[in-house]
C-alpha cells in the first residue's frame, strides 16, 4: 500500500498552519471542532495528508488545488501600506451575526463569508498590518474549518498548546528542540525526567529512546497524579514497559537496600490536572504589553491574545462550550462521544480495577523497585521541565548520573536557572555550563512582501545545560 490510511483507533492530528487538534478515531465518535459537532467516521480509510472542509457538520474532502487556495496565509490581503484614499470613519462591521448565520444556512463557503466581513468592515483597512493579520486569522479559524489530517508528531503536538502555553510551562517548540538535542537522548538511553508539561517532554524523549531505553519519570510523591496526556497524542499507551515512575520523596531511601519501598505512584493519561505553572495567576499581566497597542475595539481583536494567556481559566471544557462568544476556547482533544464520554470510559476502567487493587499495588511496588535499580545503576541523561523549584531536584539527582552525562534544565523563569548554574559551578559538578534562551522568528516570504512576521513570541523559556563531571582519584 503506497499511502498510509487513517484507521480506527489512530490518533489523528487535524492540522492547519499554526493550529492543530488531536483526536482518536473511533466509529460513531463525534468531536467538537471550533464549536461544530463533527462525525469523524468519514476519515476512516482516507490517506493521511488529505484535506477536509467542514460543511454543516459533515467532513468533505477537498482536492489538493482547492486546499492550497484555502490555506491560511495564501489569502492574506494587500498589506495596506498605501492607504491614501481611506477616510477616518467611525462605523464598524455592518454584517450582523444574523447575516452571517443566514449566509451559512444558504451554504456560503467560509471564504465567502470572510470576504463579506472584510467588505463590510470600515475599520479593517485602517488597521495596522499586525491587526489585519490578527483579524483574518481569527475569522478564518471561525469560518473556514479546513484542515489536513496528519499523524501526530512532537512538532504538530506543539501547535495544540500554542494558545495555552501555560499548560506546558511556556515551553516553545524551538526551546523543546534544544532541550532534546542537549539531553543527548538516543535509542537505548537511560533517562531521568521531571515533566509537568502534560507529558510532552516525556513523550518526546520516549520517542527517541525507541524500544530499547528506559525512562524514569520523577514525580513529587506517589499520591500526586502526573499528567501524561501527550503520550496518548503520540500514540503511546498509557503504561509502557520502558517508562517508570519514581517518587522524589523516596529518593533518600534509595541507598537503603533493606527498606521496603512504599506503594508505587499513580499516573493518569487523559486526566486534566492543573499542571500550569504556579505563576499563571499572575499571567493576566502578560496581556497588555505589546507596544503596538490596538486602540480600535471594533472586533475584539484582543481576545485572541488574552485567550492564549489565561487559558487556565477555561480548564473545564463544558464551561468553555457554554461560552458561545469564546470560539477559540475549546481544549485540546475535547471529545463528545456518541455513546459515552471519554471520562465515563475512564471511570468505568477504574471501577473495574477496584477489586484487583492489591495486585495492582504490588505491580506498582515492583515497578518502582525496578526504577530504583535503574537509577542506582545510573542514568545517561537528566531532563527537568517542571513547575517545581529545579535546583534541589537537580542537586539531589546528580548522584544518579554517570559522569559525562547530559543534563538539561528548562524553566519559564531565568532566575531559578541562575541558582542551578551557581550551585553546579560551586560544586564543580559539571562542564560546558550554558545558560541560554533562543530567539525565534518566522518570516513572511511573498513576492514583493517579504518581511519578518509581525507577531512574535517574546519568550520560549530558558535552558541550562551541562555535562556531568567527576573528579577522578587518578
Amino acid at each position, binding site marked *: 500500500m503506497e499511502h498510509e490510511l487513517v484507521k480506527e483507533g489512530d490518533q489523528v492530528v487535524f492540522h492547519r498552519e499554526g493550529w492543530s487538534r488531536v483526536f482518536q478515531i473511533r466509529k460513531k465518535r463525534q468531536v467538537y471542532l471550533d464549536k461544530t459537532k463533527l462525525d469523524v467516521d468519514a476519515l476512516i480509510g482516507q490517506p493521511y495528508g488529505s484535506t477536509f472542509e467542514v460543511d454543516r457538520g459533515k467532513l468533505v474532502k477537498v482536492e489538493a488545488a482547492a486546499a492550497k487556495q484555502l490555506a491560511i496565509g495564501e489569502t492574506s490581503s494587500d*498589506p495596506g*501600506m498605501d*492607504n491614501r484614499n481611506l*477616510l*477616518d470613519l467611525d462605523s464598524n462591521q455592518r454584517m450582523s451575526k444574523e447575516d452571517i448565520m443566514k449566509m451559512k444556512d444558504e451554504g456560503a463557503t467560509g471564504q465567502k463569508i470572510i470576504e463579506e466581513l472584510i467588505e463590510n468592515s470600515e475599520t479593517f483597512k*485602517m488597521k495596522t498590518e499586525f491587526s489585519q493579520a490578527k483579524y483574518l486569522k481569527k475569522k478564518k479559524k471561525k469560518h473556514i474549518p479546513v484542515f489536513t489530517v496528519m499523524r501526530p508528531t512532537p512538532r504538530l503536538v506543539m501547535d495544540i498548546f500554542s494558545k495555552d*502555553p501555560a499548560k506546558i510551562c*511556556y515551553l516553545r517548540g524551538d526551546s523543546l528542540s534544544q532541550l532534546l538535542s542537549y539531553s543527548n537522548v538516543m535509542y537505548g538511553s537511560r533517562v531521568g525526567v521531571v515533566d509537568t508539561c502534560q507529558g510532552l517532554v516525556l513523550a518526546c524523549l520516549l520517542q527517541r529512546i525507541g524500544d530499547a531505553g528506559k525512562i524514569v519519570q520523577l514525580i513529587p510523591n506517589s*499520591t*500526586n*497524579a502526573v499528567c501524561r496526556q501527550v503520550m496518548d497524542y503520540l500514540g503511546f499507551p498509557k503504561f509502557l514497559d520502558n517508562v517508570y515512575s519514581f517518587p*522524589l*520523596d*523516596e*529518593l*533518600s531511601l534509595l541507598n537503603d537496600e533493606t527498606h521496603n519501598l*512504599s506503594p508505587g505512584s*499513580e499516573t*493518569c493519561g*487523559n*486526566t*486534566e*490536572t492543573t499542571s500550569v505553572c*504556579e*505563576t499563571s495567576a499572575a499571567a493576566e*499581566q*502578560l496581556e497588555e*504589553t*505589546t*507596544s*503596538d*497597542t490596538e486602540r480600535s475595539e471594533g472586533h475584539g481583536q484582543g481576545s485572541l*491574545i488574552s485567550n*492564549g494567556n489565561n487559558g487556565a481559566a477555561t*480548564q473545564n471544557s463544558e464551561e468553555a462550550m457554554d461560552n458561545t462568544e469564546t470560539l477559540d476556547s475549546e481544549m485540546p482533544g475535547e471529545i463528545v462521544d456518541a455513546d459515552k464520554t471519554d*471520562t*465515563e470510559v475512564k*471511570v468505568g476502567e*477504574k471501577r473495574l480495577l477496584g477489586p484487583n487493587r492489591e495486585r495492582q499495588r504490588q505491580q506498582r511496588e515492583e515497578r518502582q523497585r525496578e526504577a530504583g535499580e535503574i537509577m542506582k545503576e545510573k542514568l545517561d541523561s537528566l531532563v527537568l521541565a517542571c*513547575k*517545581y*523549584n*529545579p535546583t*534541589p531536584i537537580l542537586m*539531589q539527582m546528580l548522584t544518579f548520573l554517570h559522569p559525562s552525562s547530559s543534563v538539561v534544565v528548562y524553566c*519559564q523563569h*531565568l532566575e*531559578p536557572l541562575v541558582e542551578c548554574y551557581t550551585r553546579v559551578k560551586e560544586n564543580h559538578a559539571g562542564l560546558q555550563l550554558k545558560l541560554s534562551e533562543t530567539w525565534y*522568528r518566522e518570516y513572511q516570504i511573498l513576492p514583493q*512582501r*517579504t*518581511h*519578518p*512576521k*509581525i*507577531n*512574535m*513570541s*517574546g*519568550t520560549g523559556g530558558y535552558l541550562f545545560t551541562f555535562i556531568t563531571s567527576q573528579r577522578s582519584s587518578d
Partner: protein
Amino acid sequence: MSFDSSKHIVDYGDTVLLYIGYDNMLPVVIEEGKTHQTKFGAVKHDELVGKQFGTRFQCPRGWIYILRPTPELWTLSLPHRTQILYTTDISMVVFQLDLKPGSIVAEAGTGSGSLSHAILRTIAPTGHLHTFEFHKERSEKARQEFHQHGHAECVTVTHRDVCGDGFQLDHIVDAVFLDLPKPWECITSAKKAIKKQGGRLCSFSPCIEQVQRTCEELSAQNFTDIVTMECLARHFNLQYAKLQNVSFEPNKTCLETKASEVETESEPPVKKSSVISSNKDKVGDSDVHQFTSAVPAINMPGHTGFLTFATLTYH
C-alpha cells in the same frame, strides 16, 4: 503649548491625557462647560482646569490621572488616521538623523503625526519641520493638531504627493524621513532638499524588497554609510513567581494524602484537579520557592519595518 514640559497646570485649550490604565489614555482638549465620558463615569472639563498635571482625579466610579502629553504618550493615544510609527522606531529615527534644537527636517508622509511630534519636540523652537501628506483630509487634521499642540510656528504641513511632485525644497534641510511605498522614487528629490553641506536620510519600509531598491538608489546617488537596521522592544512583566519545593523524605502526611486518594477514586477523574489544589493548600509557604521574576511579554511585535539610514556629505 500642551506638550511643553514647563507647563504644570491644566488650562482651557490644553490637550490633556486622561490616564485610565496602562497603555490606555484618552486625549481630551479642555473646553469650558464640556463633559467627557470615561469608563469610570463623567469628567467635567471645568473641574480639571487649575489642577496640576500628574494628579489623581476622582470620577464617579474610579480614579483617573491627568497627564501632560509627551510624544511617547501621544503615540499610544492619538487618533489613528493611518498605520503609525511607534516609540521604538521613532527614537531610532530621531537619534540616527542627528536631530537637535534648530534642525530642519523634511518628512513624508505626515500620516497620523506620531513621528512628527517626536521630531518637533527635538528640533523646537528654532528648527522647522516640513511635513508632506498626499491625503488632503489627513494633512488638514494634522495641521489642526500641530496648531492645537503649540507647534504651529515650527511646522509647515503641505498637502502633496512627494513621490510624484517631490519635496520642492532647495537645499534647506538637515534630514529627510521617508515613509512611502516607493521611497526609491524620492531619493533625487530628497537629495535636492538636503543642505549642500550634507545631511542624513531615513527610509522606513516594511518589506525587504523595498529596502533593496532603496539601498540601490541611495548608493547610486552617492549616499554613504548606508545602514539598514531593525529595532524591537521587548517588555518584561514582573511576576511574583512561586515554585513548589518537592520533598526528598517520605511524606509525613502520608495518611492524610491517602485519604484524599481514596476520596479521589469515588469521584470522576475530571475533578482530580481539586486533589492537586488541596495538596497545594497543604503546602506551607516554606515549601514554596518565591521570587520576583521579570518575564518577557509572550506576545511582542516581531516586525514593524526596516529602517535604512544614509549620509549625504557635501554635494
